[in-house]
């Protein structure tokens, strides 16, 4: 059975199993097979069908024992998780930026407020005259019974929301972005860890 053990050794070498671990497994296998031979048992009695496929046997043993290093060309992190994590973190950063801008310096807020007032409708507004063009091209004012001015109601807003400014919608949007980004990033990380744990397999499972 030396050939079987040698083939196992070659497979462990190929899999970059640490030498001390490979030597230990090979030694255990050799003494077990030798004892079986002394008792008249066949290698198949010890190894089952694995006796016909030493490489698969060696790989299974090393992998189950957890002594096979990850291949260097094998991606450790699935691209999907990296993409999702980056997207959620970008959302969180965007939310933080919006929040910071919303709670900015007083000068910024004054400027925004002034801009908002200038754009707001005035309380008293004179309506334009209604003109009618006669067939000869002459234009006359159309008399009207309605007043030609309008007074805005007292509860009309004096300011309007300005995009990118200190309006009330920005902090809320920033908070939502930040919350969604952080929550998504945490969920992505937890999913990644959970799936990674699942790949290792349950504690008690069939060989």
């Amino acid at each position: 059975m030396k050939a079987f053990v040698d083939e196992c050794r070659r497979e462990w070498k190929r899999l970059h199993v640490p030498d001390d671990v490979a030597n230990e497994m090979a030694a255990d296998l050799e003494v077990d097979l030798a004892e079986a031979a002394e008792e008249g048992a066949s290698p198949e009695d010890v190894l089952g069908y694995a006796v016909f496929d030493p490489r698969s046997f060696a790989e299974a043993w090393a992998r189950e024992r957890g002594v096979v290093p990850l291949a260097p060309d094998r991606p450790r992190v699935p691209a999907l998780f990296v993409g999702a994590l980056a997207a959620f973190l970008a959302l969180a950063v965007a939310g933080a930026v919006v929040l910071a801008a919303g709670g900015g310096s007083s000068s910024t807020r004054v400027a925004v407020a002034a801009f908002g007032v200038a754009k707001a409708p005035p309380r008293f507004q004179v309506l334009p005259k209604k003109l009618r063009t006669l067939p000869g091209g002459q234009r006359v004012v159309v008399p009207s019974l309605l007043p030609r001015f309008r007074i805005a109601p007292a509860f009309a807003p004096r300011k309007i929301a300005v995009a990118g400014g200190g309006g009330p919608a920005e902090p809320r949007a920033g908070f939502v972005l930040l919350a969604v980004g952080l929550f998504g990033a945490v969920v992505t990380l937890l999913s990644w860890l959970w799936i990674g744990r699942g790949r290792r397999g349950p504690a008690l499972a069939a060989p």
Partner: protein
Amino acid sequence: MASAERRSSQLLRGVLDLCLLAIVAEEPAYGYEMTKRLRERGLSFVGEGSIYPLLGRLERDGLVETYRAASDGGPPRKYYRTSSTGLRALTDGVAEWRAASAAVDAVLAPVQTEVHA
């Protein structure tokens, strides 16, 4: 016959880890010694994977502990014994096995009666 052997192998696969834990819970043992104890109790085949990969998994998961000791004047052997975590896993696994076994018996018992009648 081959079909019966395959079914037995598949049945054993699901509980071989429990059998190994039970064997070393009685008394620490090295690899081939476990194979012999299983055979003495009627489990003469261990399937295509043998017990070594499974022992590796039990060791990796901390369900067994290992130590080296001489065996009856022979070379030092790697002995396995059940850890405290392994004992808990064994207790839980045996309970699961008994529940599953009882459920299967409940289904198969009438069939056996008809066969013997």
